[in-house]
């Protein structure tokens, strides 16, 4: 059993290191195949572990000591329990499909090998993040995925926008990571250990104020990784990276790390329900806020990115209200259909020669039937229509909000569900149906290679059937996670489900109806509300205007006025004093013995004077 743990963990590392050997070489097909196979091996090992954990319970191993200094002892310990094994299966499954897909997608890229090396390194970091049995290991994985995200967003580093977006993502995550580090320090300071089992066993004895502080700090870390408001701007800009990266990192896995952290620290957050409620409120706000931005955006990938943001908000609502298993369930189903949506979008982009504006597409159904069907499945799942996966998980989150009496949150999520349905189908309609706008640009779109489509089929199937595993999933993860039961009358529950389904279906119907007739009138784009939405509430502008500009000015001030004028000048002055005094003093060295003797006598006299002035007092 332990063997499978190590295989699952280290196969991606082996893949990354092996492929890295060829990183600087031109494209070699076998690097992609080897990487996909090794990630596939990791996936199989994860599935075996899933069965084993189900049969024999969690597995906890300590590979070796890592840091051992004084009272501090941090081992390289790994735990495969009900939560981490679900994460492992989700991560490796999506990763395998993304790896296979990338062989087709990155076909013509000259850095083909480097791409696979980074992608596998990401999978390894993510596995460390979810499998670690202590907070420090989690933090290492956390930083590792951040690094790989930076490398992959900026994969086409010669594009200024890509390297800018990579830096933005990295810096925003650093800001949040400071919060997380503070949380970790507090945990160690108060409890003297980083091990999950020790921390969660003892955390209830702490002062509630301290628990609240720890909870807030850890959540700040989660906010950065999961791109919650106000640290959300990097996620939309991260779409500069290759599309498989967006599918794997910025939809299915890395961005859900924040949710994973909250789920993992469930023991801690159940002690501080007020912080949990704040998390849920923020989640509901982001769910609505991001969905509204997705309504008007014309960039294919950004729409899906905002949708990811919105769905992360849903997950945080569930996690914040204590329904950890529901959050994890939505995390899993979302990973399937959202990565499918992104990978489909990648096919569309390829067909359209990297055109991203959905207004310039239209009518692609004729030439890309398979992609259109897969993306429609994903969109239906995202919209939450029975019997697709999104229905089960999203509906549960709404029920949780209702059950907790947080009707306001419920209402926000309810509206969000309608918006989700609308923008998903706006995208589908504009891309695959309607007028063939692409003909104006003289493009001849073609379907992706067959193996790419076949690789997507498992995700399509999962997007349809994953919801039916709800009961098995519930029974499995609640062995570890706190159980959460919804106590609503069956009648009310049926009305809620009907209402949610109703708003989702009417959102879809409205989108289809409007875009069948050629979309909204142009005059709408002149309205103030449209402008606010299409400019993302002017938040990126505000950040630039009120944070970046003043910070740049401040940096410039420090550089010009303080660094060059004070610090540099002081250092230069010291150097100049020595230089000048040396220049003057070298005249002493006349080489004349009389002069030397005179200097010597002068020295003796000076020393004598000192000896007399500072003679020891008897």
């Amino acid at each position: 059993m332990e063997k499978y743990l190590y295989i699952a963990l280290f196969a991606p590392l082996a893949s990354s290191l092996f492929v890295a050997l060829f990183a600087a070489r031109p494209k070699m097909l076998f690097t992609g195949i080897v990487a996909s196979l090794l990630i596939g091996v990791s996936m199989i090992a994860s599935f075996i572990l899933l069965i084993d954990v189900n049969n024999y319970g969690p597995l906890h191993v300590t590979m070796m000591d890592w840091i051992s200094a004084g009272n501090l002892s941090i081992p390289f310990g790994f735990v495969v329990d009900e939560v981490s094994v679900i994460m492992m299966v989700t991560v490796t499954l999506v990763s395998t499909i993304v790896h296979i897909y990338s062989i087709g997608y990155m076909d013509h890229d000259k850095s083909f090998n480097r791409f696979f090396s980074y992608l596998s390194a990401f999978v390894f970091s993510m596995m460390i993040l979810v499998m670690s049995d202590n907070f420090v290991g989690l933090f290492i994985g956390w930083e590792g995925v951040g690094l790989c995200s930076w490398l992959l967003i900026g994969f086409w580093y010669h594009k200024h926008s890509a390297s800018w977006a990579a830096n933005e993502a990295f810096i925003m995550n650093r800001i949040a990571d400071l919060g997380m580090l503070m949380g970790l320090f507090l945990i160690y300071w108060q409890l003297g250990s980083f091990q999950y089992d020790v921390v969660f066993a003892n955390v209830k004895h702490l002062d509630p104020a301290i628990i609240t502080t720890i909870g807030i700090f850890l959540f700040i870390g989660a906010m950065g990784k999961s791109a919650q408001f106000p640290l959300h701007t990097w996620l939309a800009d991260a779409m500069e990276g290759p599309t498989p990266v967006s599918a794997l990192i910025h939809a299915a896995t890395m961005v859900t790390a924040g949710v994973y952290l909250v789920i993992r620290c469930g023991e801690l957050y159940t002690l501080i329900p007020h912080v949990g409620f704040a998390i849920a409120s923020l989640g509901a706000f982001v769910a609505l806020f991001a969905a509204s931005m997705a309504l008007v955006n014309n960039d294919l990938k950004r729409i899906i990115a905002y949708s990811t943001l919105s769905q992360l908000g849903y997950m945080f609502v569930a996690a914040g209200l204590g329904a950890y298993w529901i959050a994890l369930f939505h995390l899993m189903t979302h990973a399937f259909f959202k990565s499918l949506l992104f990978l489909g979008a990648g096919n569309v982009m390829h067909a359209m020669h990297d055109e991203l504006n959905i207004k310039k597409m239209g009518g692609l159904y004729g030439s890309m039937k398979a992609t259109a069907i897969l993306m429609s499945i994903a969109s239906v799942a995202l919209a939450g229509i029975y019997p697709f996966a999104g229905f089960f998980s999203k509906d549960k989150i709404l029920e949780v909000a209702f059950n907790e009496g947080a009707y306001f949150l419920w209402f926000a999520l309810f509206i969000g569900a309608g918006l989700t349905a609308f923008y998903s189908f706006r995208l589908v309609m504009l891309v695959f149906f309607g007028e063939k706008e692409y003909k104006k640009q003289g493009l001849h779109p073609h379907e992706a290679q067959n193996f790419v489509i076949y690789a997507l089929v498992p995700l399509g199937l999962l997007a349809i059937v994953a919801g039916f595993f709800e009961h098995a999933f519930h029974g499995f993860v609640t062995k570890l996670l706190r159980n959460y039961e919804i106590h609503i009358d069956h009648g009310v529950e049926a009305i809620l489900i009907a209402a949610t389904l109703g708003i989702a279906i009417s959102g879809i119907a409205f989108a289809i109806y409007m875009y069948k007739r050629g979309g909204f009138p142009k005059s709408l784009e002149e309205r103030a509300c449209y402008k606010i939405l299409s400019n993302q509430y002017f938040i990126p502008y505000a950040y630039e205007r009120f944070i970046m500009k003043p910070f740049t000015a401040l940096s410039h001030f420090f550089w010009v006025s303080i660094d060059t004028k004070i610090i540099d000048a002081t250092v230069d002055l010291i150097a100049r004093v020595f230089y000048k005094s040396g220049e003057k003093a070298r005249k002493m060295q006349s080489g004349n013995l009389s002069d030397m003797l005179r200097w010597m006598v002068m020295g003796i006299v000076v020393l004598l004077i000192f000896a007399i002035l500072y003679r020891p007092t008897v």
Partner: protein
Amino acid sequence: MITLTHYLVLAGLLFAIGLVGVMKRTNLLMLFFSTEILLNAVNIGFVAVSKYYGDLSGQLFAFFIIAVAASEVAVGLGLLILWYKRNGTVDLNSLQIMKG
């Protein structure tokens, strides 16, 4: 009555004469004389203090200095003659090959 003070004043005066000689003279031979004066000024001081305290080590040290001075002069004069043979002068200002 000649006291310690007289001896020390004499030693000081001799030392000053020697010091001025060392600084002023440019003839190497004269420089040697000046250093001898310096050394002997110190010798006087040593012997006087030794007598005053009734401690023989001062006088002993004076003998050492005389011995060292004699050997120093022997070596020094040898070098001086060599220099004179080469350059035809014993002027200090001709000794400037170490100019920095």
